[in-house]
């Protein structure tokens, strides 16, 4: 062979090798190997040095008003000092981009239905759901509302510009690891993407499809039994706010009647249920050791790595605030300043309704509404799918909203949904957080929260003048209180919302005589509140917090932390003694029954009694609710209702076991039978696996579910009913306790994650261990005089 051909052959081999090593193998799940493994732009460049201070950065930028200084402290928390507010949001955007870009991108893609473009067909179902429910419309609405507030748009644009400053300065070696693994690239940030992140929060907190589960339960139980098992409120409960309510101006009579009108139907729809919850409370100076008001908040959310939160301190001549921001969103969402502190919990009021469409002719998309025949419009969504052809989804838009699931598969229903985020609103929720960051007193708080509407939240407040307050703030439709729990008849306009609860009549309470305010996702009001509502509310955490606040006075920061970390389970405390009594009365005995009788109802990680308790309650639920427990999608009555029935009507028809036709069982028989089954189950579990933390321990997974980037099966205590509401996937995502003083406000904070989104950084997960041990960081607001020994890095933005 001549050198010519040898050269051609070698060149060809060279090119082939380059192409092969630069091509991902999606079927084998392998990324492009040379771009990933080379030490110049591959993953190695993200191996951030440990035990080394970071080099200071001087960044010239044309997009700022004045020079900006940012100190990253030894926890990598930024302290931003600027002369203008726009610059503060610019710096926040830059830091979010620098530390959490992939997380921001993935979150906004989940809302815009563009996950498949980077993840492939595995994410197509999620994208179809996002497109069907029309999150994009919610984004457009949000942008429209923001545009009514030009001063806020300036700040949002500054934030966007900050993110893009980072993106444009990035070289390939700086790309987040996930982009390198997925072989895709970051794109420019936009205000629309910020709105998508905000809608993501609304979707996590306010989007539930319980109507389907309730409809299924109704079909199986019938009206009377359903109403008995699913009352809107328990016989006894502690509402967030109880007071003499003003009478509304509008005529609400037709809504206040608890009428029952439903559309029996069968469904085949996955239930989107996030089990999110939170606690917040505030106490005034009379109840505390130092004579200072204290506010506490711990929002319970799905826990992932990177964390949903990014801690930050911002100081401008007009504001000085510390708290947590959400990457992709401008502002501090939960936090405090020199004068005030604020916190959020979810309201759980139902703001999504479902309607079955009565088609006249499905081919022409015509359907009935009252006596008219209307035509549904068609929305055509093109979904890009990585390594595959685009998927096209045609979605019908009705009077009520989009058809969530069509019947193309022959089994799905024609159900349209109306969600509050589909409505246009004049308010700007971003303004709420902006004004809270600057708030100085109760008036400022009340002014600030008027702009908040989605997702509905219990916004709590305290200031150093010893005012405390709480408002159930949001956009809550006025509708039938019972009908709205089911898939309603979409051919009847009677089922429509008749407006929204006016701002002036939203439940709120300021400086109550008892000196404390609590919210923990329970019923917002007592039964006398003039506007009926339904939802999924917690019965136990709020009451436990109240007990502990009353018992531990005078209160201080440390006692508040102990309360926040309590794993005492009031559900177990109310049910187990009753159940043990019944079983003992039936003549049964067992050492484990004695243990349960002596138990303190603490859901500790190393105790096995919580495991036994939960198995028993599950078995009891299955036995009692055998009429519905076989259906995977049916709603199941809550344990508090089961306890009420056991105590009030032990011979209720629901206790009859349907498989024993000749016999009519009572509550007691269900309890003993479930005890025997629970015991059998419990005894088959290995000793070590009976520990609560081993069985129900939390896993904090990486957003792409990569095990080696996750912390799995941690030994954690608590469950959804304990104040420290840690489950397998969710938990207190940010624990904050603030003592407000006119002289020096102090706080304790922690979240399970780390400031960096880079799995190669020591700051990726460094807060998890202290979070697990309930060790908080002590925080004070820092003027521009941070101790040099605490500074990890200084970043300065300078005008050219």
């Amino acid at each position, binding site marked *: 062979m001549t*050198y010519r051909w040898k050269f051609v052959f070698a060149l060809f081999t060279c090119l082939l*090798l380059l192409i092969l*090593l630069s091509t991902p193998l999606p079927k084998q799940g392998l990324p492009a190997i040379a771009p990933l493994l080379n*030490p110049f732009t591959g*993953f190695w460049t993200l191996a951030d040095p440990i035990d*080394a201070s970071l080099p200071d950065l001087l960044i010239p930028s044309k997009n700022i008003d004045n020079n900006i200084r940012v100190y990253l402290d030894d926890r990598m928390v930024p302290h931003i000092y600027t002369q203008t507010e726009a610059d503060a949001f610019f710096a926040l955007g830059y830091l979010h981009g620098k530390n959490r870009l992939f997380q921001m991108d993935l979150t906004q893609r989940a809302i815009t239905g563009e996950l498949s473009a980077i993840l492939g067909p595995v994410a197509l179902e999620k994208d179809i759901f996002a497109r069907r429910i029309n999150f994009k419309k919610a984004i457009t609405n949000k942008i429209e509302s923001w545009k009514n507030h030009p001063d806020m748009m300036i700040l949002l644009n500054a934030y966007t510009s900050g993110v893009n400053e980072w993106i444009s300065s990035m070289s390939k070696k700086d790309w987040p690891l996930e982009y390198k693994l997925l072989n895709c690239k970051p794109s420019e940030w936009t205000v629309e993407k910020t709105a998508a992140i905000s809608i993501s929060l609304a979707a996590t907190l306010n989007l539930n499809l319980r109507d389907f589960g309730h409809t299924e339960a109704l079909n199986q139980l019938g009206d009377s039994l359903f109403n008995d098992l699913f009352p809107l409120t328990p016989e006894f409960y502690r509402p967030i706010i109880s007071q003499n309510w003003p009478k509304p101006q509008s005529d609400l009579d037709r809504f206040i009647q608890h009428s029952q009108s439903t559309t029996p139907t069968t469904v085949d729809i996955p239930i989107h249920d996030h089990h999110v919850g939170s606690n917040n409370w505030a106490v005034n100076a009379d109840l505390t050791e130092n004579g200072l008001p204290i506010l506490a908040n711990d929002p319970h959310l799905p826990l992932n790595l990177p964390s949903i939160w990014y801690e930050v301190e911002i100081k401008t001549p007009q504001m000085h605030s510390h708290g947590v921001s959400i990457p992709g969103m401008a502002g501090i969402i939960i936090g405090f300043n020199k004068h005030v502190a604020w916190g959020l919990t979810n309201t759980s009021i139902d703001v999504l309704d479902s309607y079955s469409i009565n088609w006249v002719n499905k081919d022409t998309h015509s359907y009935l509404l009252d006596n008219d025949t209307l035509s549904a419009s068609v929305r055509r969504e093109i979904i890009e799918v990585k390594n595959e052809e685009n998927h096209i989804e045609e979605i019908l838009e009705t009077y009520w909203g989009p058809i969530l699931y069509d019947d193309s598969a022959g089994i799905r229903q024609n159900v349209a949904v109306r969600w509050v985020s589909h409505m246009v609103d004049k308010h700007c929720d971003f303004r709420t957080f902006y004004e809270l960051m600057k708030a100085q007193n109760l008036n400022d708080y009340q002014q600030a929260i008027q702009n908040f509407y989605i997702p509905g939240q219990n916004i709590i407040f305290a200031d150093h003048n010893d005012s405390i307050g709480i408002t159930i703030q949001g956009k809550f439709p006025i509708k039938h209180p019972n009908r709205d729990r089911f898939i309603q008849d979409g051919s009847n306009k009677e089922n429509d919302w008749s407006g929204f609860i006016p701002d002036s009549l939203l439940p709120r309470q300021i400086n109550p005589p008892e000196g404390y305010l609590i919210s923990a996702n329970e019923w917002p009001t007592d039964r006398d509140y003039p506007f009926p509502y339904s939802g999924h509310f917690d019965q136990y955490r709020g009451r436990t917090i109240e007990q502990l606040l009353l018992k531990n006075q005078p209160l201080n920061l440390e006692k508040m932390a102990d309360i926040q970390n309590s794993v005492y389970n009031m559900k177990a405390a109310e049910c187990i003694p009753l159940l043990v009594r019944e079983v003992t009365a039936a003549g049964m005995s067992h050492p484990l029954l004695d243990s349960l009788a002596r138990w303190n109802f603490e859901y500790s990680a190393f105790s096995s009694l919580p495991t036994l308790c939960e198995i028993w309650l599950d078995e009891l639920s299955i036995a009692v609710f055998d009429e519905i427990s076989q259906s995977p999608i049916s709603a199941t009555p809550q344990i508090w209702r089961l306890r009420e029935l056991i105590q009030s009507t032990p011979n209720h028809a629901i206790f009859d076991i349907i498989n024993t036709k000749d016999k009519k069982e009572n509550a007691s028989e269900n309890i003993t039978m479930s005890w025997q089954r629970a015991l059998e189950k419990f005894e088959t579990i290995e000793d070590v696996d009976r520990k609560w933390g081993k069985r129900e321990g939390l896993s904090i997974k990486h957003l792409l579910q990569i095990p080696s980037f996750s912390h799995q099966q941690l030994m954690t205590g608590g469950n959804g009913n304990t104040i420290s509401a840690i489950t397998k996937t969710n938990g207190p995502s940010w624990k904050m306790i603030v003592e407000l003083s006119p002289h020096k406000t102090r706080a304790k904070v922690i979240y399970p994650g780390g400031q960096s989104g880079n799995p*190669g950084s020591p700051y990726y997960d460094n807060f998890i261990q202290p979070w697990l041990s309930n060790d908080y960081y002590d925080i004070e607001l820092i003027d521009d005089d941070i101790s040099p020994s605490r500074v990890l890095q200084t970043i300065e933005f300078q005008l050219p």
Partner: protein
Amino acid sequence: MLITLGTWLACYWFGWRMTVLIPMAITFILPERNVILDFLFCFFSIFIVWTGYSYFLSSTNHHLLTDRMTSLFSMSNSITIFTITGIIGGLIAGAGGSTGYFLHHFLKNKERS
């Protein structure tokens, strides 16, 4: 030495694809006695660059990320990932070096004829 240093510098500034160009250029200018020697020189020079530099980056990180990536790709230990990194770099450089060697001789023969 020339290949090692030259490639490291070029890759640092112009990206990893320089791994093919620099060895190609060097063997084009200064070819060895035969192509096998050139391939081996280039392979080992770049094996050292890719493994050594990745090891340096990883060690300042106390191998935190390396361990996570090792586990992600279900490898038994981190030596494997360093070795694969070196081999990939080495193969690319070896192929580049061989191409440079043949180009040198092809042009030399052309001049002669």
